């Protein structure tokens, strides 16, 4: 009964979000709160939050499965559904943020395809690939889990697939953290962000699963213990953030650390409402943390910003409780108790090695193909997409192997053919493309490592330097002064006193607030840039 009520509440919450969605798609980013310091806004904050929540399912089903934790079977199926629901909700926000959601396929790493350069050095592309693969494999995992009720032989495939998902789930949130960690915004710079983000995601995920299990009348004491354990881990990260950047947020500490400590008190811990309230407090703290991170200047919120809360909550509730109702009807309650164990029948190790080998080779082939098309991309920056692609191929082979055991060959080939046709149609859509004309040569956008320069120096200046230093060399004060102390104005005398060698070192290796450009600008180009700056200084009034 309660599942049905929550499903309807979710649908009702989705109603206002339809209007918000329409408003946001019509007006674009102008419809939500933005200013000079907050240039991503609530869509990205909500995306990071929901993608974090999506970790819960895989954490409980895959990670704990490979670690042989017995109690995971009591919650794994609802947790897997919550992953799918949270992923679908999370995927909405970057699409809105794109402004032109119908062109989302431009994020596919195609490599100078139709004169469109998809920047493989950008974490946004890695994000797209990793999340798409995670969604596909999570659905496969859920299918095998559900299918194992009817076909017990499928249980043997859960563990090999869990081994694919285990690193992938950590990979996804690491990539999300790199969206922030590699930028020039001082408060986002953190080499410790990958682990910090993973911890935050798992913490919120555990709180979500605790709420979902309480709603179904189950109590898992281990979840409460995990909540306390992770609250201490997060405390360490919040203090480190304070030590390194001076960022401190009392309300996050209160809701995210102090409130969960109530779980130490046994009489309080025994009350289901208190447990749910504590878990909700954790979720609120981590949502607020993402908001504070993405929106450091706290611009005034519009109705659209509030609408995202309804969209996220309503969308999640509608998808999760809808799927839960359907699965309960199809499998009754057996799905939560019977088929979740690990089969005694072990999967042949040779075959696992073969699938991983094929996955590795496929990912390697893709990287080779991409780098032949765009030779300027440094190989190491292909690593973030390498593993998700390898995982996709390996996972797909395991799933095909699994269903080849239980399905009729004709049905299986029909299914595979259907998937092939859909993919082919999609490839055709990309090939046909839109009518956009790109004036800029892709070679300009490519971040290349060149022994010798072939790019005009003014183009490099405009693409690399002008955002801070200004097109005419008079500083882009509007942008710079928000984040950094203003650098000194360029003058001929200053150039002559510093010398070409030291200035080119500053360009290549960075200094104080100036970022390093080694690997993106060659030494020859750095020297040409100095000459160009000198010419601008001469022209300066």
């Amino acid at each position, binding site marked *: 009964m309660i599942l049905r009520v929550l499903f309807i509440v979710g649908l009702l919450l989705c109603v206002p979000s339809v209007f918000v969605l329409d408003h946001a798609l019509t007006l674009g980013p102008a419809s939500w709160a933005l200013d000079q310091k907050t240039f991503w806004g609530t869509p990205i904050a909500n995306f990071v939050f929901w993608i974090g929540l999506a970790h819960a399912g895989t954490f409980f089903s895959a990670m704990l499965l490979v670690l042989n934790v017995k109690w995971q079977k009591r919650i794994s199926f609802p947790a897997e559904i919550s992953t799918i629901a949270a992923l679908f909700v999370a995927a909405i926000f970057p699409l809105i943020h794109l402004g032109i959601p119908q062109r989302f396929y431009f994020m596919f790493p195609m490599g100078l395809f139709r004169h469109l350069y998809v920047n493989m050095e950008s974490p946004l592309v890695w994000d797209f690939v990793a999340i798409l693969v995670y969604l596909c494999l999570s659905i496969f995992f859920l299918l095998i889990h559900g299918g194992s009720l009817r076909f017990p032989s499928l249980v043997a495939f859960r563990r090999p697939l869990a081994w694919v998902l285990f690193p992938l789930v*950590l990979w996804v949130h*690491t990539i999300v*953290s*790199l969206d922030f*960690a*590699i930028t*020039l915004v001082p408060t986002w*710079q*953190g*080499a*410790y*962000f*990958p*682990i910090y983000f993973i911890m935050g995601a798992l913490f919120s995920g555990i709180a979500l699963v605790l709420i979902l299990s309480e709603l179904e009348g189950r109590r898992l004491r*281990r979840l*409460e*213990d*995990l909540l*306390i*354990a*992770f*609250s*201490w*881990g997060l*405390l*360490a990260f919040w*203090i*480190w953030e304070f*030590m*390194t950047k001076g960022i401190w947020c009392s309300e996050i500490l209160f809701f995210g650390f102090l409130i969960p400590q109530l*779980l*130490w008190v046994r009489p309080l811990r025994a009350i289901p409402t208190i447990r749910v309230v504590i878990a909700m407090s954790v979720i609120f703290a981590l949502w607020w943390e993402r908001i504070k991170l993405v929106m450091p200047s706290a611009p005034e919120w519009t109705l659209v910003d509030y609408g995202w809360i309804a969209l996220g909550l309503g969308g999640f509730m509608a998808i999760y409780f809808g799927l839960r109702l359907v699965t309960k009807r199809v499998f009754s309650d057996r799905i939560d108790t019977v088929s979740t164990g690990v089969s005694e029948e072990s999967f042949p190790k040779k075959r696992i090695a073969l699938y991983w080998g094929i996955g590795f080779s496929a990912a390697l082939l893709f990287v080779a193909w991409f780098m032949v098309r765009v030779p300027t991309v440094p190989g*190491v920056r292909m*690593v973030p997409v390498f593993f998700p692609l390898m995982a996709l191929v390996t996972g797909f082979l395991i799933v095909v192997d699994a269903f080849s055991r239980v399905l009729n060959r004709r049905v299986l080939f029909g299914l595979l053919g259907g998937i092939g046709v859909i993919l082919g149609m999609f490839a055709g859509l990309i090939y046909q493309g839109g009518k956009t004309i790109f004036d800029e040569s892709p070679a300009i956008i490519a971040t290349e490592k060149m022994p010798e320069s072939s790019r005009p120096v003014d183009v490099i200046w405009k693409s690399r330097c002008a955002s801070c230093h200004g097109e005419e060399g008079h500083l882009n004060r509007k942008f710079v002064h928000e984040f950094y102390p203003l650098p000194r104005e360029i003058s001929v005398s200053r150039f002559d006193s510093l010398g070409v060698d030291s200035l080119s070192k500053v360009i*290549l*290796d*960075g200094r104080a607030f100036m*970022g*390093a*450009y*080694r*690997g993106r600008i060659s030494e020859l180009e750095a020297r040409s840039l100095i000459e160009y700056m000198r010419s601008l200084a001469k022209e300066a009034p």
Partner: protein
Amino acid sequence: MSPLMNMLACLLAMLPAPFLWQGAMPLRLRGAFLGIVLLCFECFIFFAVLPTYSLYEILPLEMLAMCLCVSTLFLKEHTAFFAVLSQCFWLWIVFFGTFSLSYRVGASPDYIQIAMLVVGIILSPILSSKKQELRFCMAAYWAGIWVLAFTPV
């Protein structure tokens, strides 16, 4: 960061290792203990290392990873499995930490440290046996990785 502080950090990281998994401690207490250990590492790095050191931000996490690696030598079962996981954790911190730094300060990842960790992951199932000599070798190998990763600035 001075070489002395680097050595001290290595020793400090090994110090809590024998106590991490000792006794039948509830999960919540063990989690809190790990959090406090990480906090201690952070305080040490905060006071002992200048923020200008390029790896400053990830040093406490690296200390925790090393602590976890050494702690696996005191486990009674699944030693090799957890040694591999702990080294993967260390590798993760180093690779993605230096990866983000490569964008910001132009520093390339420390490939020697990464290669040594990969070798450690491969060797763990062989070396993490019950023989004390081999366990000592593993601890010495991890200390070696720590020391070699030091870059004087």
